[in-house]
């Protein structure tokens, strides 16, 4: 036994919801004695669920970037914006700081989540020992930053509600923003269904 014993080596199990430590139950679907949640050694079907959600997220990510997210109209002059053109516009209007923030939230964060989950999943499949502490840190990072991607969705919603000056000026949401919102929701679901404990399960069978 190593200096850092893991729960199964001691015949223990931790409740994922309330944290109570119990003896590993002999039968499946036993509940936690404190909160009643089902005690599971690992999240159910973690790998297949994460793959499915990640692929779904990637599929909706394409129209989210290609399609315009918002239309601005003023006196018959119509202009459609995509995620990227919104960032460029901020940059050109001398708001470089904000352009960097929006670029990070809308483009870097989703990409980082795709790449990070891909690396985490592939390493688990290969039962790799490579960079385990860094992989654990990567997982915590995407959990922490995941919801900031919703930034652009809220910006479009606010501008739509604010810019309502009839023919003078108006903003309306376009389908791109719906796909983008779905991308954020799906990537969040994907990272929630990934079980970070799998990163350390190199010698044991999964599930």
């Amino acid at each position, binding site marked *: 036994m190593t200096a850092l*014993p*893991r*729960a*199964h080596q001691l015949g*223990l*199990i*931790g409740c994922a*919801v*309330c*944290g*109570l*430590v*119990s*003896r590993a139950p002999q039968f499946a679907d036993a509940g936690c*004695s*404190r*909160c*009643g949640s089902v005690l599971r050694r690992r999240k159910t079907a973690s790998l297949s669920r994460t793959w499915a959600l990640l692929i779904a997220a990637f599929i909706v990510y394409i129209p989210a970037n290609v399609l315009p997210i918002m239309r601005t109209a*003023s006196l018959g002059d119509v202009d459609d914006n995509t995620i990227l053109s*919104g960032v460029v*516009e*901020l940059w050109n*209007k001398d*708001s470089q700081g*904000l352009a960097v*923030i929006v670029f990070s*939230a809308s483009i870097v964060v989703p990409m980082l989540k795709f790449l990070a989950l891909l690396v985490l999943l592939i390493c688990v499949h290969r039962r790799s020992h490579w960079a385990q*502490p860094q992989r*654990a840190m990567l*997982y*915590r990072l995407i959990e922490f930053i995941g*919801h*900031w991607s*919703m*930034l*652009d*969705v*809220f*910006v479009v*919603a*606010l*501008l*739509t*509600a*604010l*810019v*309502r*000056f009839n023919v*003078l*000026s108006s903003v309306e*949401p376009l389908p791109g*923003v*719906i796909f983008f*919102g*779905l991308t954020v929701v799906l990537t*969040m679901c994907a990272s*929630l269904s990934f079980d*970070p*404990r799998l*990163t350390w399960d190199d010698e044991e069978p999964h599930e």
Partner: protein
Amino acid sequence: MGPSSRLLICDDCDTVYRLPVLGRGEVARCARCGVVLARHHRLGLDALTALVLAALVLFIQGNIWPVVTLALNGQQNSTTLWGMILIMWHDDAQVISVITAVTLFFFPLFNLLTLGWLLLFGRQGRLAPAFRPLMLAMHYFGPWTMSEVFVLGVLVAMVKAKAYFEVFPDAGIYSYAALTLFITLFAGIDLRRLWDLVPSRRA
């Protein structure tokens, strides 16, 4: 009460520890994966209750007052959070309307009310009615509250609008900004601390 009641298992890697005793400002990290296992509780339950009540007031203010006003040629237009949600619904972006309503209104409100309710009883060392289902709901809703993202979103929208309109921040956004500070304060709170109120029994 078995011997396991004083143990702690890391959520991120399943390493077993004895529950550490932490001094002021101390943080216990997992030696295998580095995740924060436990923090010293700086705030007592009374202080937490006060914070939650204050946050609730800010939340109500942030929702009834407009967040931003735009002006163009003497015309003015302002919106509240709910104005934004309803307009997205009518502009054929119902998906966005629902995401916004859930992440900025329903879940944050639920979490604040629930936390307040649980703490109100907890500070007397009692279990609130419906303690278990409410704690479970908070556990699952937790990752889906995004008030802090909204504050940044308002800032970005104001800068974007500034090129074409006169922009006036309203009272609502100040309430929201303050609320974000409060939410950050109790984001560090371990909800599991409240589970310790449940008297343990043998499985």
